[in-house]
């Protein structure tokens, strides 16, 4: 083969990221007729968090990497736009924003600029559905119910700002310590997708009350070393770009399938799922208004990126509503 692409994801083989990589590897190796080989490193074998791995991508020792918005916040703070609550109403909207609009390209240009043309955003998929609030103490139906709860967040501004705006107390805890911290009461809640909750067996640590507020889309940002990409001839680049498209579709589908059994297991483990009514959802939306202002004024490029996401959402909502109107007749 002529090219070896080294791809890494900091998750495990049960994760959506791995499903996407398997599809990518299979497609690219076949479509390039063996000219491109994809080598997978799953877990923390090469690097153990977003910053470390992005550095590897920047210096070319890693070709392909998938990061969450939080993991990339150190170098591309504006990608935290995906952590802003309640901007996209459904999977259908989110997927249309990420496939049918120029929003990903807007982010790609900014990222290339901020990484000195080293890190290229290839596509944005999903990793684990949507974030919801879950806790060990009580059912949460309105924003007021979160008051005073110690909620685990990653070490990043925006999730912490969101949690404190809702009256809860953001507590940074490393992911491997979260199980014992929930169990012993160091924290009382978390904001994760259901598959992560079940993979880590958090209900065994007392995590019981889950509120499906869907406050953030768990975007998976797939990046590649720009030089590696541009050093390939155009027909190979075409194969890679198509491979990422296949990967994206796989990561859209995978969490939906996995979450069904995860919700069943959650209920079987004694968990209670609460679905907020439209009014209650509105109350959450009203409560988080200050976070949007905070994002606009505290995050570099925040206002511009937030605006372009809102434009993209407006555009796809219009299209989707029109499609639905046509399809239900």
């Amino acid at each position, binding site marked *: 083969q002529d090219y070896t692409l080294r791809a890494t994801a900091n998750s495990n083989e049960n994760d959506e990221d791995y499903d996407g990589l398997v599809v990518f590897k299979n497609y690219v190796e076949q479509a390039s007729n063996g000219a491109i080989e994809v080598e997978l490193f799953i877990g923390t074998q*090469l*690097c153990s968090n977003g910053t470390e791995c992005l550095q590897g991508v920047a210096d*070319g020792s890693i070709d392909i990497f998938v990061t969450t918005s939080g993991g990339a916040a150190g170098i591309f703070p504006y990608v935290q736009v995906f952590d802003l609550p309640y901007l996209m109403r459904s999977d259908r909207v989110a997927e249309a924003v990420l496939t049918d609009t120029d929003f990903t390209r807007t982010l790609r240009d900014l990222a290339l600029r901020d990484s000195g043309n080293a890190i290229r955003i290839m596509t944005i998929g999903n990793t684990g559905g949507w974030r919801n609030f879950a806790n060990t103490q009580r059912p949460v139906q309105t924003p007021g119910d979160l008051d005073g709860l110690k909620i685990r967040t990653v070490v990043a501004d925006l999730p912490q700002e969101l949690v404190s705006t809702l009256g809860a107390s953001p507590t940074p805890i490393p992911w*491997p*310590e979260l199980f014992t911290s929930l169990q012993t009461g160091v924290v009382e809640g978390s904001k994760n997708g259901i598959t992560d909750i079940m993979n880590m067996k958090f209900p065994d640590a007392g995590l019981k009350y889950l509120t499906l507020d869907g406050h953030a889309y768990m975007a998976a940002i797939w990046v590649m070393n720009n030089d590696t990409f541009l050093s390939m001839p155009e027909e190979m680049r075409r194969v890679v770009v198509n491979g990422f498209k296949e990967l994206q579709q796989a990561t859209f589908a995978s969490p939906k399938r996995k979450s069904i059994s995860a919700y069943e297991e959650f209920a079987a483990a004694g968990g209670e799922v609460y679905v907020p009514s439209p009014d209650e959802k509105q109350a959450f939306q009203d409560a988080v208004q200050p976070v949007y202002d905070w994002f606009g004024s505290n995050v570099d490029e925040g206002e511009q990126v937030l605006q372009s996401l809102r434009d993209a959402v407006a555009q796809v909502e219009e299209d989707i509503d029109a499609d639905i109107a046509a399809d239900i007749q």
Partner: protein
Amino acid sequence: MLLWFLPVFLSLLLIGLPVFFALLFAPGALLWLNGQERDLALIYRNLYNGMDSFPLMALPFFLLAGEIMNRGGITERLVAFAQAFMGHLRGGLAHVNILSSILFAGLSGSAVADTSALGSTLIPAMERQGYARRFAAAITAASSVIGPIIPPSGIMIIYAYVMGQSVAALFLAGIVPGLLVGLGLMVTVRLLADRYDLPRAERIVERNAAIAPLEYWVSFVLLRLNLAGLLYMLTWALPGGWAVGGWAVYLALLVPAHFALVWYRGRCTPDFRTVCKKAVAPMQTPIIILGGILIGVFTPTEAAAIAVAYALIVSFGVLRVMTVADLGDVLRRSAIASATVLLLVGAAVAFKTMVSLSHAPEILAEFILGLSENPLTLLFLINVLLFVVGMFLDAGPAIIILGPILGPVFTGLGVDPVHFAIIMSVNLTVGLATPPMGLVLFVASSVSGERVETISKAILPFLAVEIAVIFLITYVPAISMTIPRLAGFAN
């Protein structure tokens, strides 16, 4: 091709290249020869990233806490306490040596600290009572390996970090194995005592010792608080559970705790009481560490920082044996010791990257499984391998080199990761006291003035017992797993 880094690494290690440089030189050279210069950056970054860790911070903190305690006159208090309980037995001071090590283990995560602290007090005392110096040095070295088995433990922090395990679970899993090693050594001493007619000792060394009023009242309060806490925990076991009570129940339990202590007090001699009271403040440390982690007040790193604060309060405020100049010295020594270990952990993480790049674990797993598919046989073989490695290499470096290679194979065979961690830790810790290259033997030699070769011979019966305990731990998982399971920290 890349796989050659392993034999290269081992050869460099054997001819005396420091472990830190060997961990980096071998992978670097092979990558360079293989034309993979870009991966050198990967190695360097993982060296950095390996050190940049919050859980790892528990290591310098526990080291610092142990150093402060050691400086603060706590060792003598623990030895006096152990003697009050076991001095009157045949081979009294040998038993005292072992019990002191068990008590000291709850404060310190290091076998070397144990040997040097207890050895300098107990070896001369044993000699004065007619013990052979080589015997005194050997029992000191043999019992000090309990230090890193009973929590806190430096090597378990390292193992947990490198292997992605919970520090708390490993700490809890080490308690019973540590006690078991102590028990095994005591039985051996008992047998030897009959054979060589080892002397008994006085239970109380210093008669009519004074205790400062502050220390008196601190131990007065702590004793009652702890006993009430113990009673409170017993109420959980009552049918129906009293957990409803909370603080009110706890405060109420202070009353029976007080009267129980007053009753017990009337049954002991004044000297015995003084010795016990003087040991209360130091022995609160393990309760703070373990209790804090168990009840969930602290993460292990925070518990370690609290241990430092507590050690400072006790040494400066209660015992008043430490000065500010001492503090500077203690900080300096701890910083240097931590730095060498952290650097080694970083190099191990870099080395681990090379292990992944070369696909060594898959190849090694295939090889190991080719030897046998029976986990029991493999565990036996692995214990032999670890023991041989432990003869030449210190526990920390050995654990960070072998953990990533061996761990996945055995967890794949259904061995619980926590159990495997304990097998590795105990085996390699015993290696610290095993000739020819046992670190603890060298320290015991310099503390006692006895030659390493002589101590090496005298320690053999104790090592035999420790090897027996290793196999007991290996084949009876419940020894390690019961406490972490009961506490909900392991499956």
